[in-house]
């Protein structure tokens, strides 16, 4: 509510004036007040008796009360005299009344007489007041005294107006700087609309503007500029002014200037030539649609590139934009430019991610469709194979063929099954609905399923699990698939008589599944591409073992979507260790 404090140097100046009035013009009391935002006059300088000073300094009087007195006042040039008999203000509201004895002499000063010099600015706004009381000679001032007093009144006016103006300016700069600070703070915001929304209150307050419009230029150079933040309802900026604004902003940015447009004059904006009709339309748009009396037009940019513009409007008299505000606004244009660049970069990244996600989703759907389409011919093949095998008296050569075909069909079935699984776990749109999964139970189940293979190859299985269950957050059948793929791989690529160690353990940031074998190992080169779809090892020993080339891709995808990690350590000829880390469940 309070206006900013005027600078101490001006308070001192006003005090000197007041003291000049008391000491040189012979008044007991002189006080100077300044208009505040809450429509009061605050006494900032009081000269005279200590009692008067104590009671009056800092006192606030409603401007309306003073204006009411002035209506009935006698006009003495710049001075206004309110004889006590005309005074309507309550005695208690005066703050200080001298103990002078009233007399019947019409020329004698009455303790309730008021002698005032109201101070208005060029726009007729009430900005201050000089008031004097109690002439030493006890007489109402004569012409000579009035003349002298007027001189002090004029000096007071100059000082008050300068002080108020400077205080307002300082406040505006402070607020504008605050607005810039806010713009810099929200630069990490990710959408332009959001940035405008967050900054607008600070910018309009900071620049004492009633309206703010931000135009961003279409990054592709097309005509799709966006206008943000009409502060007063939905004001549609005509295309003509968008085009004009774009041109003006580019010119202004290259010169690092701002432009002020007022109703009185549409100036030359950075050398841009407007024809008479355009000037008239711009005038009408400002006057009638925006209801603005002046506009500060500021280019927004980063480096050499102009990215947009912001227009700030003011309404009413005395709403010029000064040079300091212009400079601050240009700095704001730089701040907003950085914010725009950030937002655009983020927008592009987001689009790219969306596209990648879309592509991954498409890939998943494609894989799923192909896998399903393969199921009908497989059904037919398998059915007919079964029918052939049911025939009596098959020759051994036919049986050999049907068995080979059966194995081929089985292999195709595994590929189709793996493809379907892959399409599910690689689909970014398929949400994971995690529950606590007891990994100890999962490993037991996998070993039940694969125990026969281990026995056939005389593999030693070492199970290293703590007595208490180890649980991870996840989807049970997917974590089963992780364990099954890792353990069956270990069995597949470990020669007979080897050892497979499966360990479960809680660790600092989750739980760990370790599957280690004493098998053929994976070369450093192969390890690089191990999790790629359809990657098969270049190792002849591995190639001779059937596999779909999808098992580890599936494991990798599942671990990824469980926010886990997978690591491999291996040496050709001595074995491989896979370590999977998953988020721990209670």
């Amino acid at each position: 509510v309070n206006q900013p404090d005027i600078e101490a140097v001006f308070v001192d100046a006003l005090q000197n004036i007041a003291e000049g009035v008391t000491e040189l013009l012979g008044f007991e009391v002189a006080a100077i007040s300044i208009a505040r935002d809450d429509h009061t006059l605050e006494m900032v300088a009081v000269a005279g008796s200590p009692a008067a000073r104590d009671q009056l300094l800092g006192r606030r009087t409603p401007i309306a009360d003073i204006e009411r007195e002035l209506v009935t006042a006698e006009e003495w040039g710049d001075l206004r005299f309110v004889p006590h008999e005309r005074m309507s203000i309550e005695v208690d509201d005066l703050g200080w009344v001298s103990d002078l004895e009233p007399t019947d002499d019409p020329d004698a000063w009455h303790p309730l007489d008021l002698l005032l010099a109201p101070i208005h600015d060029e726009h007729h706004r009430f900005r201050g007041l000089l008031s004097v009381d109690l002439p030493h000679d006890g007489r109402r001032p004569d012409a000579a005294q009035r003349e002298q007093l007027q001189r002090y009144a004029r000096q007071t006016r100059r000082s008050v107006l300068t002080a108020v103006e400077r205080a307002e300016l300082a406040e505006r700069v402070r607020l504008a700087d605050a607005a810039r600070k806010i713009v810099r703070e929200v630069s990490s915001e990710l959408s332009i609309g959001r940035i405008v929304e967050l900054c607008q209150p600070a910018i309009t307050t900071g620049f004492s503007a009633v309206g703010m419009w931000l135009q961003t230029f279409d990054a592709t150079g097309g005509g799709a500029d966006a206008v943000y933040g009409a502060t007063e309802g939905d004001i549609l900026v005509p295309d003509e002014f968008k085009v004009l604004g774009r041109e003006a902003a580019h010119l202004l940015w290259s010169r690092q200037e701002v432009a002020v447009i007022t109703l009185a004059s549409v100036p030359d904006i950075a050398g841009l030539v407007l024809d008479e009709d355009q000037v008239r339309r711009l005038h009408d748009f400002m006057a009638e649609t925006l209801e603005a009396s002046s506009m500060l037009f500021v280019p927004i940019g980063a480096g050499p590139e102009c990215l947009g513009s912001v227009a700030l409007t003011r309404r009413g008299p005395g709403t010029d934009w000064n040079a300091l505000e212009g400079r601050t606004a240009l700095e704001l244009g730089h701040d907003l430019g950085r914010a725009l660049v950030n937002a655009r970069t983020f927008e592009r990244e987001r689009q790219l991610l969306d596209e990648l996600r879309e592509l991954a989703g498409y890939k998943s759907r494609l894989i799923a469709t192909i896998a399903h389409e393969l199921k009908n011919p497989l059904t037919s093949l398998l059915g007919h194979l079964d029918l052939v095998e049911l025939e009596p008296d098959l020759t051994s050569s036919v049986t050999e063929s049907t068995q080979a075909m059966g194995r081929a069909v089985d292999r195709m079935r595994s590929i189709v099954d793996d493809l379907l699984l892959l399409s599910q776990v690689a689909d970014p749109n398929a949400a994971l609905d995690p529950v606590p999964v007891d990994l100890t139970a999962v490993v037991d189940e996998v070993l039940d399923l694969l125990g026969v293979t281990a026995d056939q190859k005389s593999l030693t299985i070492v199970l290293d699990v703590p007595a208490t269950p180890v649980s991870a957050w996840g989807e049970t059948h997917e974590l089963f698939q992780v364990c099954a793929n890792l353990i069956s791989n270990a069995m597949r690529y470990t020669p007979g008589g080897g050892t497979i160690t499966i360990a479960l353990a809680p660790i600092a940031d989750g739980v760990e599944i370790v599957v280690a074998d004493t098998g053929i190992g994976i070369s450093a080169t192969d390890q690089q591409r191990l999790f790629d779809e359809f990657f098969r090892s270049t190792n002849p020993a591995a190639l001779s073992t059937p596999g779909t080339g999808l098992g580890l891709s599936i494991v990798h995808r599942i671990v990824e979507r469980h926010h886990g990690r997978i690591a491999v350590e291996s040496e050709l000829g001595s074995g491989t260790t896979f370590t999977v880390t998953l988020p721990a469940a209670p």
Partner: protein
Amino acid sequence: VSSADGSLRFLVVDDNEDIRDVLVRMVERLGHTASVAADGVEAVEILAEHRFDFMLLDLTMPRMTGDEVVRWLRAHPDRGEGLRVVVVSAWVGEQRGHLQELGVHAVLPKPFRAQQLRDLIGGTLPVPPSADGAARQVRKR
């Protein structure tokens, strides 16, 4: 419905001719008889006229899906009397629960072995609910 020699009557519904063919041959090889329908519309036309012990039903078909055939049966409980519905499909994964609710008795995922079909027919299948039961379900809705 079943004939005196113990053979059962099958309706094979699939839009893929190869699949219809192999299913019919398997069914016949197991000593039963089979009729065929190429989609759901044909299936309900035949079901309206004839009675069967088993329907081997594909899910994804043009004109009328397997799902819709099952719903049609629920709306016409008299036509489903004594009929066991086995869904034979490549797309059954997450639909199993929903299919069971609809009154499907068993699911045979593609591809399958002859032995799996034989097991299904050979009595491992639960006894289908009576026509009364189906009618009650319809009224409950």
